[in-house]
């Protein structure tokens, strides 16, 4: 990358990601970019992230707040889909950011910041699950609670969840049932498989980033994920019959 200097047209201390796309293009002649072209959105986001992380390492609270706001939903969603329990997920997601704040010094910038953040997230998820299991909470149970709840919402008050005798025209309700079914099935899944489903199929992560986050190689990830998807597909098929 060129330099971390802010071109004059961009405000240097911008906290929120800018929705404007033209901010950096004016200064292009002054700020030498490797290809002499305008920075893409992705490149600009990367620069901004680097500035934020540098400020975070100095203990800058505003940078920390921006990072929390930027990533809170993604981190929470991963934790929630993995643990299946909102209360636990809230607590774990908070812990993730506390760890990020306290260990910002250890982030050297060899990987993307988000990769590091998700690695911290995955570690916290696994540790919490271990802790919950030690305390006698079965692996599938928290997810089952979510599924049960969704099922109740989707199928009406008195209808049993998958009583298909009277088909409901309400597509939303059907979507909810599918969702509930899948979440329940995920709760039964081995945690390593579930994690891959969450990262790839729910969170939309690339295989390379998944490899960086989990430490598994891409081949292993693909074959495990395929097996996990087949299990989910089977569960769907059983109930569609």
């Amino acid at each position, binding site marked *: 990358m060129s330099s971390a200097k802010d071109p004059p047209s961009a405000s240097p201390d911008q906290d929120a990601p800018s929705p404007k796309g033209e901010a950096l293009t004016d200064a292009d002649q002054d700020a030498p970019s490797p290809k002499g072209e305008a920075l893409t959105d992705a490149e600009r986001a990367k620069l901004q992230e680097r500035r934020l992380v540098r400020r975070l390492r100095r*203990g800058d*609270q505003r940078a920390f*707040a921006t990072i*929390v*706001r930027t990533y*809170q*939903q*993604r981190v*929470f*969603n991963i934790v*929630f*889909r993995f643990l299946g329990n*909102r209360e636990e*997920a*809230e607590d774990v*997601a*908070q*812990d993730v*950011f*506390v760890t990020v*704040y*306290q260990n910002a010094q250890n982030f050297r910038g060899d990987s993307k910041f988000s990769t590091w953040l998700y690695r911290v997230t995955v570690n916290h998820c696994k540790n919490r699950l271990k802790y919950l299991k030690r305390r006698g909470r079965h692996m599938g149970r928290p997810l089952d609670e979510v599924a049960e709840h969704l099922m109740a919402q989707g199928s009406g008050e008195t209808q049993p969840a998958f009583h298909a005798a009277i088909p409901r025209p309400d597509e939303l309700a059907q*979507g909810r049932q*599918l*969702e509930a079914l*899948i979440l329940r099935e995920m709760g039964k899944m081995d945690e390593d498989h579930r994690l891959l*489903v969450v990262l790839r*199929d*729910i969170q*939309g992560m690339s*295989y390379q980033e998944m490899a960086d986050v989990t430490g598994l190689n891409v081949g292993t990830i*693909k074959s495990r*994920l*395929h097996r996990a*998807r*087949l299990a*989910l*597909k089977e569960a*769907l*098929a059983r109930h569609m019959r």
Partner: protein
Amino acid sequence: MDHQRAQDLLSDYLDGELSDESISELEQHLESCDECQSELESLGDTLSVLKGLKPADPSPDFLQQVTKKVRRRSKSAFDFNFGLDRKIPFEAVSMILLGILLALYLILVVLPKEQVDPAAPTSTRPDAGAPMKPVPPGSGSQTMTP
């Protein structure tokens, strides 16, 4: 391409992870194999349900909760609140208090004794000399034997 191989590649096919060559081989098999065809469809349905899950939102006060935890957990609040409402770490406060107490002890208790002791008989300060005075022998025995 044989049936088993085709089954194994369905995920990669949906992910767009296959080479052009593998894609055309697989598609050739799909045309002649109903089982793989329907397997592909239901696998695709499963993936779209997963992708369609609404992202779950953390509570609105998430950031405040995180900030609170950071404050609670960092041993010294010093670095976190630097520049805003700057707090002095507990360790520093206790060291200073300890120093003050030690100084007070030296000034009020130890030093007066040492200075006063040799001059005890001529001391004009009643409270400094008082504890050193022997108890009058008569006062105690009288109460013991009425």
